[in-house]
């Protein structure tokens, strides 16, 4: 087995460092629609339905849903130690920034390559938001 490591520049939004297995969603995510006691996505029509986002490095296009539910959703996950280790997004919006600040989850955007091409579910990803660096490790 061969491991390939790729380093990519990114733009820090919420600082900190997080490492974990990547979970990629091509659809926007609403944290209120995950089970706060397990981290499993409950939204039936979502591509991550039934998957667990706890302690993953989450790669997704953007957040969705009202400010109240989004923030409460991520905050509850965090208080059960089930929040993602870090988040990599394409399109940023105020509510997601506030959610990440409150839950203290590192958040970055503007990856130098398309995150959906550069990162696959199952890769081991380190997000060092303070240094503006994402490291992707993939085994072949």
């Amino acid at each position, binding site marked *: 087995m061969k491991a390939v490591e790729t380093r990519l520049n990114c733009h820090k*939004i919420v600082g900190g460092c997080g490492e974990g297995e990547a979970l990629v969603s091509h659809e926007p995510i609403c944290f209120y629609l995950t089970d706060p006691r397990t981290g499993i996505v409950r939204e039936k029509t979502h591509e991550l339905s039934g998957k667990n986002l706890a302690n993953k490095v989450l790669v997704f296009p953007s957040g969705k849903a009202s400010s109240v539910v989004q923030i409460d959703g991520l905050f509850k996950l965090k208080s059960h130690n089930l929040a993602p280790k870090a988040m990599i997004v394409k399109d940023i919006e105020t509510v997601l920034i506030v959610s990440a600040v409150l839950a203290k989850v590192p958040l970055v955007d503007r990856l130098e390559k398309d995150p959906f091409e550069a990162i696959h579910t199952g890769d081991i990803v380190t997000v060092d938001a303070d240094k503006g660096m994402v490291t992707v490790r993939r085994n072949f």
Partner: protein
Amino acid sequence: MNLTREEEKMLGGKLGRGIQAAMELLVAIGDAYDAEKMIPVTRAHVASSGQEGDLYFVELLANGGAKCLVPTSTNPVYDIEFFHRLFEIPSDEAEVARRVMEAYKKVGAILSWSCVPYLTENIPLFGETVAFSESSATPYVNSVIGATTNREAAQSALAAGVVGKTPRYGLHMKENRRGTVLIKVEAALRSSFDYTLLGQCVGEQIGFGIPVLTGITKRPNTEDLINFCAMSNTSGAVSMFYIPGFTVEAQTVQEAFQGDVPDDSITVTDAELKRTWERMQTTSGKIDFVMLGCPHYTLKQLGEAAKLLEGRKIHDGVSFWICTSSTTKALAQRIGYVEMIEKAGGSVVVDTCIDEPCWTVYRDRTGMTDSPKCAYYRRFKDVVVAGLEDCVEAVIKGKYE
């Protein structure tokens, strides 16, 4: 972001932990959007919710010594004592709500507990820079009043309220207020409920964007616009819209698009609104309660409900609730609307919202409402959505057919 010396002091904690936490949040947002600087705000509205994330931040600020520097109003939570007399409320939920309300008092907010503060308690003027969260409030303030606000979260609005500033980005900049999608309205729009359906339909179809509506010939009233705002910013993320000729900022379609062409164009017909309406229904027939006032009912709407109920009796075993603000209820009481509604067997309840834990008694029940937003966030099982007159007829008969 370039910070002034005063702002650096706030961020460094020299003015206390509360102000520091507020500045940290505002700086994170400013940096994310590459804002160059902070600009003063004149007022804020916080979409407080009485939930855990809300509690964490308001206590952090209040206990850290922060105080609102500009008028800062609050969204509904619920009156714990009032609901305790009616229903069982889990004690941990009630404790969170109690602490939330205490913390907002401590931080010096206007305790409006209303989702339409722009009508009564906290009214921006044209051109003001503000930070208003809450689905109907953001687009109403941008479009109907012509003040500028971003689609704030509760916490970023509260942070702006205590710091008195917000990063300069998004809708505070003219070039970002350009219309994006042309909406050709061919539907007749006979009532405020038709504006509800129009908002729902537009939000669903465009998702994120600034719609420019044409084909509306009759001047919309306040309630029409509130409904459009609440629904389009719940089914989608519509922070601003234009109805040239009726909303304040652009007098022509061309001006709304800032001389550019629309990114997209959509036609909305009566048939489209009917399909939107049909998709919301999960049941029909027997109902257990009617819930109105999402967003909070205005005085005019309370008057309409009172007149429809005058001299009639609500069906046995069916409840009728209208949510409104305490200021509006006080006036409705003075006029006699509240008595008319109560005589028929209904209740006018203040300071709360359907998305609060005080309503869990309806978990397995069927409700009827004139608000798709209420249907979306409902804590009850099945829902019928229809206009006010249909809701009143149904609550008299105990069923909707």
